[in-house]
């Protein structure tokens, strides 16, 4: 029998129909994926199941009897819990305090901390969610914070766990750990719903998958009977090109356009870059893969001139750049797609028009003697909007009003429209959906074929391997291996990325435990 049934659910926000007569059901003890592009209505549907909003039409049936879920607490009473994409944790409090919050064990009028810590320790041992109950949440990694959220749900005795984009913030190893945990939860009889738009993960973890598109239910399928291509087609509504096509090989005599020599960076006693060197040729995409926090941000900042190196050089077109600044680098033909568009890429409250020249406001194209050329800027913005198919109401709307994919198109359009020689593309597809990913990849290949040198830094291994001519593995501020993508299999890469490999065996091995657990399961 179906554990959860949502029948004919309709939800309307203003003029937007977020859910249109959606029927959705989940069986007891299964892992069920909810797939759809950004804006397809997945989260809206789940928020109604978690009592955060009430459907305009339709009914929710739990274990055969209809329920009204007016608030999250009524959902929790019914055994439903949700882990949000943005964690709802109190950073200054301990793991235990966060988990028991609202349902604290008491000794008389007082909080029974000992008992709480014991309960948390038991729970974490039971499901293999290793965590120190006394640690402060603010000090934890993202992956561990997620564990706290899951433990919180388990502590509240949930039978149904909803996870909203749980892997969006995790490193590949953390994803493996998470999936192991989800499997053990399933063995224990819990039911799990995962909201996601990552196809590979669905195929790996879930039993069934439901696809939403533009607020409507498309279909529900058994995962075993489908594949990535079909899922993508159902989600987007048309055939999706996975393999990048039409990439030209790098010419044998292609000059080196970007070079980093022996980059060293020490900051507050930390060695962030230690002798990093790399070369990118004209017409080449050089991909960097590595676990986040191994020097990606630092090398990007050094090349783009946002930060300075302690030692070493950055060379553009063979010329060393003395004390690089963002303006100097832009003038010499470097374009930057920042890794975090919200932080470094866009001024959210500026109009799209103003954002379209950020970084080039002093260029002669857009200003003379300090006075902005409004006409030129408007033409430029309209050009980006039409060339990069940015969906905007008006170019005077703020950047914040755009969806993630369209924001990223503005950032990319701005960088590529300056006809740069060298492109630093950091996380170019983070947080954008499949249609936009496909388009952005195609643009990068176009640029490569036009003879640009592209340095690609991405947390998505598939993206790096799929697009790059050369791959460099970054570990502890240094490139520990380079080669063509075909030279690496996933296991070798995983080992290299965590510093545990025969060539680097003499290095410290801090991640040994994680590695063991990761590979013992695979």
């Amino acid at each position, binding site marked *: 029998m179906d554990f959860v049934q949502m029948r004919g659910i309709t939800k309307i*926000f*203003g003029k*937007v*129909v*977020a859910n249109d007569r959606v029927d959705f059901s989940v069986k007891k003890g299964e892992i069920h994926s909810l797939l759809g*592009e*950004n*804006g*397809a*209505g*997945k*989260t*809206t549907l789940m*928020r109604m199941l978690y009592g955060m*909003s009430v459907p305009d039409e339709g009914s929710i049936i739990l274990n055969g009897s209809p329920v009204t879920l007016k608030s999250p607490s009524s959902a929790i009473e019914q055994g439903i819990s949700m882990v949000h*994409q943005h964690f709802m944790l109190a950073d200054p409090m301990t793991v235990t305090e966060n988990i028991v919050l609202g349902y604290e064990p008491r000794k008389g009028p007082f909080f029974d901390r000992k008992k709480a810590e014991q309960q948390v320790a038991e729970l974490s041992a039971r499901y293999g969610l290793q965590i120190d109950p006394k640690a402060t949440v603010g000090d934890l990694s993202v992956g561990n914070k997620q564990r706290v959220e899951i433990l919180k749900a388990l502590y509240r005795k949930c039978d149904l766990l909803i996870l*909203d*984009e749980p892997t969006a913030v995790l490193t590949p190893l953390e994803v493996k750990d998470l999936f192991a945990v989800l499997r053990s939860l399933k063995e224990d009889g819990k039911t799990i719903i995962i*909201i996601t738009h990552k196809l590979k993960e669905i195929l790996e973890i879930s039993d069934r998958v439901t696809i939403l598109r*533009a*607020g409507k239910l498309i279909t529900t399928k058994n995962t075993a009977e489908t594949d990535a291509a079909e899922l993508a087609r159902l989600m987007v509504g048309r055939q999706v090109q996975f393999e990048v096509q039409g990439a030209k090989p790098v010419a044998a005599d292609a000059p080196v356009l970007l070079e980093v020599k022996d980059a060293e960076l020490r900051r507050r006693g930390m060695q962030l870059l230690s002798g990093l060197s790399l070369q990118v040729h004209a017409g080449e995409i050089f991909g960097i893969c590595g676990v986040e926090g191994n020097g990606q941000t630092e090398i990007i900042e050094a090349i*783009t001139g*946002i930060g300075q190196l302690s030692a070493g050089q950055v060379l553009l077109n063979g010329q060393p750049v003395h004390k690089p*600044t*963002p*303006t100097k680098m*832009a003038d010499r033909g470097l374009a*930057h797609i*920042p890794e975090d568009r919200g*932080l*470094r*890429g*866009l*001024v*959210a*409250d*500026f109009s799209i028009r*103003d954002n379209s020249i*950020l*970084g080039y*406001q*002093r260029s002669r194209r857009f*200003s003379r003697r*300090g*006075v*902005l050329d*409004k006409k030129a800027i408007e033409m430029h913005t309209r050009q980006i909007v039409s060339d990069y*198919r940015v*969906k905007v109401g008006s170019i005077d709307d703020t950047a914040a009003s755009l*969806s993630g*994919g*369209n924001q990223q198109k503005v950032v990319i359009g701005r960088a590529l429209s300056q006809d740069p020689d060298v492109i630093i593309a950091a996380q170019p597809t983070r947080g954008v*959906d499949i*249609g*936009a990913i*496909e*388009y952005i990849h195609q643009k990068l290949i176009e640029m490569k074929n036009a003879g640009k040198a592209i340095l690609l830094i991405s947390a998505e291994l598939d993206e790096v391997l799929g697009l790059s001519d050369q791959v460099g593995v970054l570990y502890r501020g240094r490139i520990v291996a380079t080669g063509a993508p075909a030279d690496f299999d996933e296991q070798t890469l995983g080992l290299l990325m965590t510093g545990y490999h025969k060539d680097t065996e003499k290095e410290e091995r801090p991640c040994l435990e994680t590695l063991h657990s990761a590979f013992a399961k695979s």
Partner: protein
Amino acid sequence: MLGNAAQRVCKVLKSKKLQTSLLALVGAIVVSGLILALSGYSPFVAYGAMFSGAFGGAANIADTLGTATPLIFTGLAVAIAMKGGAVNIGAEGQLYMGAFAAALAGAYGKDLPMVLHIALCLLAAFIAGGLWAVLAGGLKIKLGVSEVIITIMLNYIATYLTDYLTTYHFKAEGMVVKTKRVAESAMLPTLYPHSRLTVGFLIAILAAVILVWVLRRTVFGYELQAVGLNPFAAESGGVKKGRQFLLTMLISGGLAGLAGACEVLGVHGYFMKGFSPGYGFDGLAIAVLGQNNPLGVTLSAILYGALRSGATMMDRMTKIPQDFVGIMQALIIIFVATPGLVYFYRRKKKKTAAIHKGSETAPATTEEV
């Protein structure tokens, strides 16, 4: 062209910011009226007296605009700092520094032609006020001390420093602690006889217009606002954050300094201990009411000027004490600062929609490729 202008006006009228300010104003007037009524006064008589005091005749209007002059400057000072991401609570201190510098330049720079002499005094005031603010900005950049605290503290230092200098080094003959009278060539010409309204008012309007242009049309204004809204993106976009911050402070402090100069050169003719009734602090309220928009700030300052000059008339014609205006001003600020009171419901709805948009949902029909 005309249609364009009409469109623009429509857009301005529809803008949320203007609505907030206007609603706040109406709210404040209504609540103040209730307070008056509850205290046994007739709000209509009171408001009538205030209005005629502020606008009932050329002399009254002149007085209102004259009172508004320093307020326009301090309002602009606070607003431009806000736009650039700096919180300048130190307009009062910068005003004192500027006033003192203008008084000295006016008294000791003799035998200059009028235009030059006035320009020299204004420049001295701008630099003195500006550097006083840059001091706070520099401490923030070098040592990471919050400019909020530093500017507040510098108010006291500026007030007492100028007080000390006047008392012990530049005191004019007589009982009152004040500097020597400025030369006739440094006095701002009055626009209406026997009133506070001088050329200073026109300079203030000019400053507002220039600021609008700078913010809208120049690279400098673009970068200033970029730093104010997202310093990290600005930095990636080649803006030198620290330098920009100091320039913002310089302009902000300079404008506050001009407020002091106009008082000295237009109204008093000398620097006097404690001459400002808190123009610098009123600047904060005016910037908030004007939503940091130079034109909004100008209108708000004129409103504040009207309240001040209207209060005098109300005091004379009714039994309501002048201090009542303080209540009105406070209410205006409370209403502007808490648009939630006005927009609570609407905002809540919007927020829910925004949350949906951030993670999911949103216009399903107008999404992506």
